[in-house]
């Protein structure tokens, strides 16, 4: 008797989100399958890799992660260009300089920088505020206005500040990052709120990524469930692509700090795991891991 592989078909489809505009736009999501189950259906876009740029000169970064960029860390535009040369699909800028507990840079300075990057860069841009929910309102609003129409993917919008950030993102033609603390119910709640003003094609879910050994299995479970709920159960409030902003989590571990090679392993294993869990955008720090993950995504590993 001929063997026939058991195949599932699913009812839901992840929405396709476009980041950036024109020829340099990147599309993520769009699949009606569980992660990498290409034999069961179609994935409109493959998962993409972003490399991280820090506008605060890589302060606090492990040496091994800085190495490929050490001559450009004080010039975010050049740093971003290097990321693309080294294989990144797009760039993820973290506005660490705006952290009120650190350099406490102004919203205007941040907006000016992002605008310059968008103009000079040949790639769409992901922009994260510093994560201080009050400071982020001013910073992200200024960035959204300065880059009106550029279709950035920006956030994080969290429970405490989503109303203001949602308005700025919606009014200025961008996409939003919906961030919740590793909790599927809170994740859905925030999505429901954002959907009142934005279509699902302009929302990306950030369920928070933890590093290997620091709670990665929780992130894995939430991403896995997110995809199941969206694709298998067809929950329309959960059918957005997922971003795994994991590089920074991996490189701040003791293991990565004490030994660059361990850092490489930490980042690649965490990235590979969250890729399997269903992440559509992986944010990494090291270009060698970017190459490695791209090979995995293209099925060459």
């Amino acid at each position, binding site marked *: 008797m001929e063997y026939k592989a058991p195949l599932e078909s699913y009812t839901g489809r992840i929405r396709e989100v476009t980041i950036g505009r024109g020829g340099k736009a990147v599309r993520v999501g769009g699949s009606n399958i569980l992660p990498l189950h290409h034999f069961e259906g179609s994935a409109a876009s493959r998962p993409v890799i972003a490399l991280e740029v820090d506008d605060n000169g890589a302060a606090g970064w492990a040496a091994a992660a800085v190495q490929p960029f050490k001559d450009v860390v004080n010039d975010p535009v050049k740093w971003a260009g290097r990321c693309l040369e080294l294989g990144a699909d797009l760039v993820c800028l973290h506005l660490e300089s705006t952290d009120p507990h650190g350099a406490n840079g102004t919203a205007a300075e941040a907006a000016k920088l992002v605008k310059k990057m968008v103009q000079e860069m040949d790639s769409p841009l992901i922009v994260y505020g510093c994560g201080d929910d009050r400071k982020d309102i001013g910073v992200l609003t200024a960035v959204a206005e300065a880059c009106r129409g550029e279709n950035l993917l920006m956030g994080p919008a969290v429970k405490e500040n989503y109303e203001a950030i949602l308005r700025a993102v919606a009014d200025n033609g961008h996409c939003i990052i919906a961030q919740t603390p590793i909790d599927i*119910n809170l994740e859905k709640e925030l999505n*429901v709120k954002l959907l009142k003003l934005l279509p699902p094609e302009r929302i990306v879910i950030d369920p928070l990524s933890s590093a290997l050994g620091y709670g990665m299995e929780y992130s894995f479970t939430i991403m896995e469930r997110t995809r199941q709920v969206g694709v298998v159960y067809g*929950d329309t409030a959960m059918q957005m692509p997922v971003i795994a902003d994991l590089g920074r989590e991996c490189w701040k571990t003791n293991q990565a700090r004490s030994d660059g090679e361990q850092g490489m392993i930490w980042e690649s294993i965490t990235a590979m795991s969250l890729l399997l869990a269903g992440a559509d955008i992986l944010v990494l720090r090291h270009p060698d891991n970017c190459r490695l993950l791209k090979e995995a995504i293209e099925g060459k590993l």
Partner: protein
Amino acid sequence: MILIGENIHIISKAVSEAVRNRDIAPIQALARAQARAGADYLDLNLGPARREPEQVASWLVGTVQEVADLPISLDTMNPLAMEAGLKLCRQRALLNSASGKSESREYMMPLAIKYNTQVVISVITDQGCPPDVDSRVESIVETVAYANSMGIDTEDIWVDPIILPVSADQKQVHEALEFIRILPDLLPGVKSVVGLSNVSNGTPAHLRGLLNRTYMVMLQRNGLHAAIADVLDEELVELNSGGLNDTRVLINRVMDGEPVDAEALPEKEKSYVQTARVLMGDALYSHAWLET
């Protein structure tokens, strides 16, 4: 279904202050209000009762019995408080609760015999709360067999499957429904009881009643015998006594997996349908479940 009024609860600030100051007025007001609202029993929840357990229990039982002619569900994990309270109960009381834990077998179950009470027995064991239907079944069958061997009649046992908040563990909410449905086959003659409001713990306050009421209708349909519940919720009491038939029919249809066009319904019925879907596990819970 029997309703056990939950409102005299030590977690309530008004109640804990009244108990501390031995202030009878707020306690008696709550007892009267619940009796008037249609409670069949009054639950007196003392929590762990670490300070003056015996004095507190006897004061509370005495205070309530002065104004309410209802049997008491004495709710504490402290055996000293339990015994002191049971001694004073004029009507046959409900000991709330015993469990499969060794200390409960040793100290609580004998009180049910000594004071001829009915007794709530939960699925909890020394290993904690069993995580699924099968392990709940396994634990309760064993604990009930033990209680029987001590001389407690099956008819006097009210099994508590332990209801968890839907905001914390949606799957278990659905599993408890299934547990209640199969219980009569497992342990013929045994009764069942739940702490209903636990299902909505952690949910925004203004939405708790809707969850409680919907879940009650679902449990009731599956054969639940009694619920410790907010009897001051008029709609809950009305649903329990067979009112609001249209709403109950809609909830039943969701339970049976029949298609219901929620959008075509009036706001209130729509919210019951959405809530039933969440409790059945058909839709992922979020605090914004009515907004989708």
